[in-house]
């Protein structure tokens, strides 16, 4: 089956060969058939059919001048606020929380005519790489249901992979869009930090978080990103078009491979697939060269200081009083301690405790201060490398999708993000596209390649991705 894309649906809508109401009905049917088994959607919005009818009217009236996503079904990770809908971050502490306003990206998707279909499962507060940390049971990988879909945006990746939507939105703090995209065989895009507003996203690591699309093609990722991007007065960290120097597209690219960084911990067949992909890039006329990024190997260590520090601050707001679930107690302190004890899962507690430690007096300089300094050096190192090459390439993750419970040790799970976290720490954009499949225990599993560009180099990633990935579909 050829998967539908936002582009193909748009063409069909304009040609009159398909209608938004039919497509959305089909989406709901797919979810109805598969969701019990896969647990991908936590909520399906009741207004979906109504939104589809409105989009259909708009397309009938305005034709080609109808907004770019008119009638396109879109799924949203459950940490993105949609006014009047339940948004849980897959946490018990927000189990019955209804959003009181729209995130800026939700507002932009609505203006673009998208049909918001429902909310997808994730690791609790986006902490994890498998959806196993969801308070509402893990999602299953549609390609092999004995395996995880990746995470934390695992539900969004699976929603696209199961064919229920052509577009899902995820958030990426250390790889949470790109890694599940790799595990589920879809495209996942993490924008330059500040390119997309974080207003109305449930915050995890505020200096790292960005929202981006999961799609079947790079062209769709580009389209959806163009709808969501832009300066927002409600998020003072959003950037303007001229914040960074322009990054131009080119006929051929000089692509850097951090070879020393790949030496350890990558599955041999993933590495083999990556080497074959590099040959394809050379065959397509690009120049592939070895580069060295020694500090990137320290990225994961710096990340597991900076991120928990930001987590412990951001999650201080869950007090059991202003919203969410309250656990009764004798005193106010009891209410705080019991609400957070019952409301948070183990991984969330672990990171809040760790973050509290690295920010506490006496340890701040040794951990947080040092990690932020390393982060700064990583930016310098990366800027130097980008004076020589146009794009970097790595495998997206060191392994294909693993089976449930296979990464029970927290540190083993963290290592899945070795190639993706340096991107968030330095704030540059990156995309994961499927590059090959590998065989595991009778399953054929997708693995992704990650391309990384300089700050504001989105167009370069889309250009390369369309020419390499979309072109062979």
């Amino acid at each position: 089956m050829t998967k539908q894309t936002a582009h193909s649906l748009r063409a069909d809508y304009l040609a009159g060969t398909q209608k938004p109401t039919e497509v959305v009905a089909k989406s709901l049917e797919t979810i109805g058939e598969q969701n019990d088994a896969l647990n991908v959607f936590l909520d399906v919005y009741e207004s979906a059919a109504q939104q589809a009818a409105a989009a259909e009217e708009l397309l009938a009236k305005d034709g080609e001048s109808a907004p770019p996503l008119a009638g396109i079904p879109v799924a949203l990770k459950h940490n993105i606020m949609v006014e009047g809908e339940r948004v849980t971050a897959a946490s018990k502490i927000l189990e019955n929380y209804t959003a009181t306003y729209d995130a800026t990206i939700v507002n932009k998707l609505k203006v673009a005519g998208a049909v918001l279909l429902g909310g997808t499962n994730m690791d609790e507060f986006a902490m994890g790489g498998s959806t196993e940390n969801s308070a509402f049971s893990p999602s299953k990988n549609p390609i092999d249901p004995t395996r995880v879909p990746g995470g934390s945006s695992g539900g969004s990746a699976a929603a696209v992979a199961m064919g229920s939507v052509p577009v899902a939105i995820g958030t990426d703090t250390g790889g949470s869009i790109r890694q599940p995209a790799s595990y589920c065989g879809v495209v996942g895009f993490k924008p330059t930090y500040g390119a997309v507003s974080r207003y109305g996203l449930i915050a995890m690591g505020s200096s790292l978080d960005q929202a981006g699309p999961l799609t079947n093609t790079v062209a769709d990722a580009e389209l959806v990103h163009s709808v969501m991007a832009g300066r927002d007065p409600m998020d003072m960290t959003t950037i303007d078009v001229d914040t960074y120097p322009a990054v131009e597209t080119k006929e051929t690219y000089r692509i850097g491979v951090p070879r020393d960084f790949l030496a350890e911990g990558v599955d041999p067949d993933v590495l083999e697939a990556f080497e074959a992909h590099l040959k394809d890039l050379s065959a397509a006329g690009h120049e592939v060269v070895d580069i060295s990024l020694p500090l990137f190997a320290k990225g994961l260590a710096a990340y597991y200081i900076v991120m928990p520090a930001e987590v412990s601050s951001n999650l201080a707001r869950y007090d059991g009083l202003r919203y969410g679930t309250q656990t009764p107690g004798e005193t106010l302190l009891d209410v705080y301690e019991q609400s957070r004890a019952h409301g948070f899962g183990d991984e969330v507690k672990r990171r809040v405790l760790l973050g509290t430690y690295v920010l506490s007096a006496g340890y701040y300089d040794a951990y947080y201060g040092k990690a932020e300094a390393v982060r700064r050096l990583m930016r310098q190192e990366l800027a130097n490398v980008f004076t020589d090459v146009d794009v970097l390439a790595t495998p997206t993750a060191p392994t294909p999708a693993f089976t449930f419970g296979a990464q029970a040790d927290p540190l083993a799970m963290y290592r899945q993000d070795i190639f993706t976290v340096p991107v968030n720490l330095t704030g540059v954009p990156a995309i994961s596209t499927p590059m090959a499949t590998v065989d595991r225990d009778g399953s054929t599993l997708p693995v992704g390649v990650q391309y990384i560009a300089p700050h504001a180099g989105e167009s370069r990633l889309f250009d390369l991705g369309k020419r390499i990935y979309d072109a062979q579909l």
Partner: protein
Amino acid sequence: MTKKEVQHLARLSRIAITDEEAETFTKEIDAILEYVSEVTEVAGTDALEPTVGAVHNVFRADEVTNEPNQYTDALLAAMPETDGRFMSVKKILNQDD
């Protein structure tokens, strides 16, 4: 990292933890700290100025942008315990202490 330290961190973080949880977290956090202390090996960080983002010190006019009471009902509805237009909380001081 000792169990006592973890219990202190839990108190600071306002998370009640059981004795058993304290044991497990102590081991896990110890292992994570050992791993992350790799950053202390990185040279050349001493002379660096503190990091600022690509955009910083961005301000907007301090103006009210919503109507009075525009969100009040929705926000009150989200609160687990209310008393009219007030949030209801437990006593802050425990007289037994």
